[in-house]
């Protein structure tokens, strides 16, 4: 579904990702793990079109999307939940969700999806009139994911959804990720520093170091890989 071929990108003089090639098939959960500063977020931002791609190709269902405007990428079914959630603090919970459906014209479908995210996270319905900035970290993560779902994406890019959350909430978020994948067939590209959890839910994974992919394999293979164990699993 999504294929990166020798993608390079960066900021000013810094090349944050150097030569990234990876493939994500429809219906998969694929994780990208790596230390802080490895280039994970840059990879996602390049896919979403917010960081310009300086070389290589990004293909979505065979169509080149590098250089496309960010709104066209969302239109093609790719939504991102960025690191740090980026809830609009002065918009209400409901308005944040409305913005997730910004590009949609099918009112009935939007209404159904709103009901769907409210069943996934009932707390959001209770808080729908509150400002986004008034939510707790966990609630903000739920809202951020729900807002992305309101676009009805075929593929979801998640940047460190577990960051800063209590263990119980992390468990809940990962359960939802698996459920979306299983029940809705949403393809998921999951960026995590929490390698242990990520490798458990992911079908396959890539390990990023200094802007380059150094290992790839199934979740199980990577969890058993010595290098991965010592660097990312603390064994």
């Amino acid at each position, binding site marked *: 579904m999504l294929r990166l071929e020798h993608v390079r990108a960066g900021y000013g003089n810094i090349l944050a990702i150097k030569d990234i090639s990876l493939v994500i098939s429809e219906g998969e959960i694929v994780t990208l793990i790596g230390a802080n500063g490895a280039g994970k977020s840059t990879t996602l931002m390049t896919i*979403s*079109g*917010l960081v310009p791609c300086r070389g290589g190709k990004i293909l979505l269902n065979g169509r080149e999307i590098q250089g496309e*405007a*960010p*709104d066209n*990428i*969302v*239109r093609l079914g790719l*939504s*991102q939940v*960025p690191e740090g959630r*980026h809830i*609009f*603090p*002065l*918009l209400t919970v409901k*308005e944040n969700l*409305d*913005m*997730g459906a*910004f*590009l949609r014209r099918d009112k009935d479908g939007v209404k159904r999806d709103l009901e769907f995210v409210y069943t996934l996270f009932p707390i959001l319905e209770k808080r729908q009139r509150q400002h986004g900035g008034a939510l707790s970290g966990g609630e903000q993560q739920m809202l951020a994911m729900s*807002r*992305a779902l309101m*676009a009805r994406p075929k593929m979801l890019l998640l940047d460190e959804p577990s960051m800063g959350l209590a263990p119980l909430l992390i468990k809940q978020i990962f359960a939802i990720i698996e459920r979306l994948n299983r029940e809705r067939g949403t393809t998921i590209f999951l960026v995590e520093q929490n390698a242990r959890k990520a490798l458990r839910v992911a079908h396959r994974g890539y390990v990023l170091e200094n802007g380059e992919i150094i290992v790839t394999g199934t979740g199980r293979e990577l969890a058993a890989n010595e290098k991965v164990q010592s660097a990312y699993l603390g064994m």
Partner: protein
Amino acid sequence: MEYFLELICGGLTRGAIYALIALGYTMVYGIIGLINFAHGEIYMIGAFTAFIIATALTIYGFPLAAVVIVAGLAAAVWAAAYGYTVERIAYRPLRGAPRLSPLISAIGMSFFLQNYVLLAQTADFVPFPALIPDFDFLEPYSHIIGASDLVILATTAVVMVTLTCVIRYTTIGKAMRATAQDSAMALLLGINVNRVISITFIIGSALAAIGGLLVASHIGQINFYIGFLAGIKAFAAAVLGGIGSIPGAVLGGMLLGLTESFGTGYISSDYEDVFAFSLLVLILIFKPAGLLGKATVEKV
């Protein structure tokens, strides 16, 4: 007592105009963090457009109501086209550049537009047709409130309520607020941020043009330079209320108008502009972010 009421009405009328123009400053600042110094000139261009259309229609003998509506619409549309174009050619190419660059570009645009109208029209004041008739029902109160005061206040009220509803309830209004709060996130949701910015300039410019028509008809003459002082005062109003805040712009405008009205009415009209700026300085000393502004750390 009657003098007091007269000063109140005069102050509110002035304030309403400041508020109409201040909205453009504050909306643009809220969304791209730029002080659009050319905004006063957009107001002036609105007044000139209204002048040209109104004069022509009056000569051809159109009824007053038609003249007012057509001139108002033409001024709003034409000024909006200027506002849109200014953003496209003078600010958009500088997005991402250091903050000072678009600011300098804005000052350049302001000078350019002033001189362009100076050359295209004239340096002299031109008489603006009286577009607002006297209302019979106001006759007994004519020493307190004039017909044009009433029309200015009513028009401003309608415009403000409409704008508030647009920003609060429509999709584009929500997208404007979202973009102002976090433009990168807005992009990630598929909001075309450039289009939102264009729409902001268009709305702000149309409001300024309506202000231009109202003032011109109230005062009875215009020239290429009227945007300068009106722009500075309206900018002061926006800062006073808290730049970036829409209710703040209205509050700041009204406060400024009333201060000027009472200052000139009870003290001396020689110091008209001094009152406005003294108020600004005083408020900024005690509330640096303005009355309704968010206290944010300036990122320079």
